[in-house]
């Protein structure tokens, strides 16, 4: 296991390098320059001062030098300072928002799994039934409905008309004065809509994937054999088939990290949640290059870790993989 892990970690190094190269390329090849934001504010900035700023950020050096300098700083976990007027460290700006985004995504992921997998399994075992068709349409509606529209409709219904749930934000204004239980309820109430909206869109992928895996496994010989041996249908399905059908789902879990993070831009904006998606969008619109690059690199690294975690889980559950790891 340890060997497998260290091998996997070694394999990550070229990927990490590639991630930094692509991040750098995407940002630096786009038109415009990082010093823009600071100079544009200031009618008094002369062309000489502008040149000075360029030199300060190393923009007068050849591209490969800029890249190497940036990489060297990254290696020391120095993401630089934001170009925006607050001039804060990029790492601080990301750190205060990352937990919110990750927390929300973990919650919606849990919700997705707990709904999508039963749906997938049941619609496989009852293929072409009404339930199968109904859930197919249901999960696809979740995928197909524009997130922000759904969010807005739910906010109007539950927030304004019924008044059951708060509309936006993460906690009430009087949060600090609440009892512990009150705080928890308050938090939970605020999370219901965003988590639901984020999860609804992700149901389709997982439930369909589970369904087709399950269909395939059910048809395999050993399940047929088990059935033939007279084991009860339920027992076969839920004991033998399910386990094998769910294994690949773990991998998909790891792979879906980036799309979940990506989607957070929309629901964080509409629900006024101060997470990383909002920060990223704001940075893009103001060309805050250090923050943009920081989030891209960090987002990609998170995905890598997510994949690694998924593979490890897979390895734990499925002995075949462990062997492979040792051999290779």
């Amino acid at each position: 296991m340890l060997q497998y892990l260290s091998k996997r970690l070694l394999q990550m190094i070229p990927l990490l390098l590639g991630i930094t190269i692509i991040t750098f390329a995407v940002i630096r090849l786009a038109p415009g320059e990082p010093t823009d934001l600071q100079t544009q504010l200031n009618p008094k900035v002369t062309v000489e001062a502008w040149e000075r700023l360029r030199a300060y950020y190393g923009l007068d050096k050849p591209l490969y030098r800029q890249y190497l300098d940036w990489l060297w700083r990254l290696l020391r976990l120095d993401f630089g300072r934001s170009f925006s007027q607050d001039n804060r460290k990029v790492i601080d700006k990301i750190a205060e928002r990352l937990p919110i985004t990750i927390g929300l995504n973990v919650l919606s992921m849990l919700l997705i799994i707990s709904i999508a997998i039963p749906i997938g399994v049941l619609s496989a075992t009852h293929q072409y039934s009404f339930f199968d068709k109904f859930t197919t349409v249901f999960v696809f509606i979740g995928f197909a409905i524009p997130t922000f529209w759904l969010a807005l409709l739910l906010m109007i219904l539950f927030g304004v008309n019924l008044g059951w749930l708060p509309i936006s934000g993460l906690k009430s204004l009087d949060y600090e004065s609440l009892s512990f239980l009150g705080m928890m309820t308050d938090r939970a109430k605020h999370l219901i809509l965003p988590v639901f909206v984020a999860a609804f869109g992700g149901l389709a992928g997982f439930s369909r994937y589970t369904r087709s895996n399950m269909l395939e496994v059910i048809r395999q010989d050993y399940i047929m054999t088990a059935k033939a041996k007279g084991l009860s249908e339920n027992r076969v399905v839920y004991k033998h088939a399910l386990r094998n059908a769910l294994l690949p789902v773990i991998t998909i879990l790891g792979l879906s990290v980036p799309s979940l993070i990506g989607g957070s831009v929309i629901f964080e904006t509409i629900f006024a949640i101060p997470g990383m998606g909002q920060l990223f969008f704001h940075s893009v619109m103001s060309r805050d290059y250090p923050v943009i690059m920081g989030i891209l690199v960090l987002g990609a690294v998170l995905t890598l870790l997510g994949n690694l975690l998924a593979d490890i889980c897979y390895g734990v559950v499925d002995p075949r993989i462990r062997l492979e790891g040792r051999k290779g």
Partner: protein
Amino acid sequence: MDKIPKMKITILSAFLTLLLLMLGSCDSCQERKETVKEPALEEPGEPAYGDTIVVGSIGDASNLLPPLASDSASFDIIGLVYNGIVKYDKDLKIVGDLAESWDISPDGLEIIFHLRKGVKWHDGVEFTAEDVMFGYRKIIDPNTPTAYASSFEEVKEAEILDKYTFKVTYKEPFAPGLASWGNLVVLPQHLLEGEDITKSPLTRSPVGTGPYRFVEWKTGEKIVLEYNPDYFEGRPHIDRYLYRFIPEQATMFLELKAERIDEMGLTPLQYRRQTNSPDFLQKFNKYRYLSFGYTYLGYNLLEPKFQDIRVRHAISSAINKQDIVDGVLLGLGRVATGPFKPDTIWYNPEVKRYPYDPEKARALLEEAGWVDTDGDGILDKEGEPFSFTIITNQGNEQRKKSAEIIQRNLKEIGIEVKIHIIEWAAFINDFIDKKNFEAVILGWSLDPDPDQYDIWHSRKTKFKEFNFISYKNPEVDDLLVKARHTMDPEERRKYYFRFQEILAEEQPYTFLYVAESLPAIHSRFKGIEPAPAGIGYNFIEWYVPKHLQKYTK
């Protein structure tokens, strides 16, 4: 208001909004005649202390150290935490803030400020002339990345006469001088001395002398201020000021309707169509007043086709400006005729106007040689069709809609218009600064002082300067210089009247509209008295009667 962080709109006009912003919140510059308060149920109640006001903002603040800030969210906070030396009162007269009084020498070159005694910074240290000097030095320091240095560069010398007396001497009489000593230049020296102010903790947790003390700033979420019990003008009535960031206009409006925020700026559609139910009007008061700024269509005068004055006249006549005011602003604003706010003393009502007249426009274009020779519906001249692109910044609904109406208007007289909407940073850098555009829809915020040297003088056409349409008129140059060095308001006014006549005649911009500010405020807040300066000038006197208070800790 607009759909995007206000920051984006204000950055370019930061220089012009400077004085306005320095002297308090954005509301400090409105007009009495236009101020209409929609009726709401008035409940009597004695002024009382307590409660919290929750203000919704579409953008987060960025930097709370006055010289470094440039977005309106930051200035909303700065206006409550810091004081200036002078400020505008409700009638837009300059009055003392941290200054008790001042003397101006007869030649207009020297100003001596007599400062209030015994004013304390929020950390208890006394405020003195040293703090003013420190702030002044920081703002003219070339290493300070501030947008507000230019009017302080007219100062020849600044001196501390004693602990409470501060003297400035100008190189030559400078009319906007007095007003420039607002809240950008008073900084707590004892907290900033010897530090790189761009990295100071005060950029995120300000310490001022103002009516409210800073409590906390949760990035992307909220800023909380609490009343300053020792404020020199008396304790503010409302205990807490909570500034909430909601990046999405639709969400913010829902929060308002659910009474989870107490104040926000409405869009014209919200004002006209979405806030008239008895229920809403019972919960909220709506206000409207003309804002200090205008929106225009500017032509790049380096483009040969726009150099022909007949073409500019034709386009001005072909654009149905009333349609824009009716359709985009829903009547909540008025057609602009020049670069000053109507109903200020600087505004010249007698200038040439260009009412909607497509026939006249066609005739003018024909005279200028633009005819549709190939019958494709688009005018052409020497084989080149009359087609141009209007650029505007991303995120401003009103400008976007105006562009669509203009596009339609010009199509009717045979001019093809393309619209290109560009994200702000690229808009400024790749298009405006490099003069890489044909026509642009943009707005200027104005301040009560009429100086517009930076926008119209022909020396201001260089890289990154504000006369990016490259307008050159020797008489205008002369008028602008004379006006800013004249202390007598009557004489200044004459110069600016002539200046407006020339602009109206030459149409380097087609002036489009002046919009109204449309705040809605929860009806439990009393003591709001609309004035030429808007509503924010007497914020410390707003109160909630005891029995109506909502947030009681």
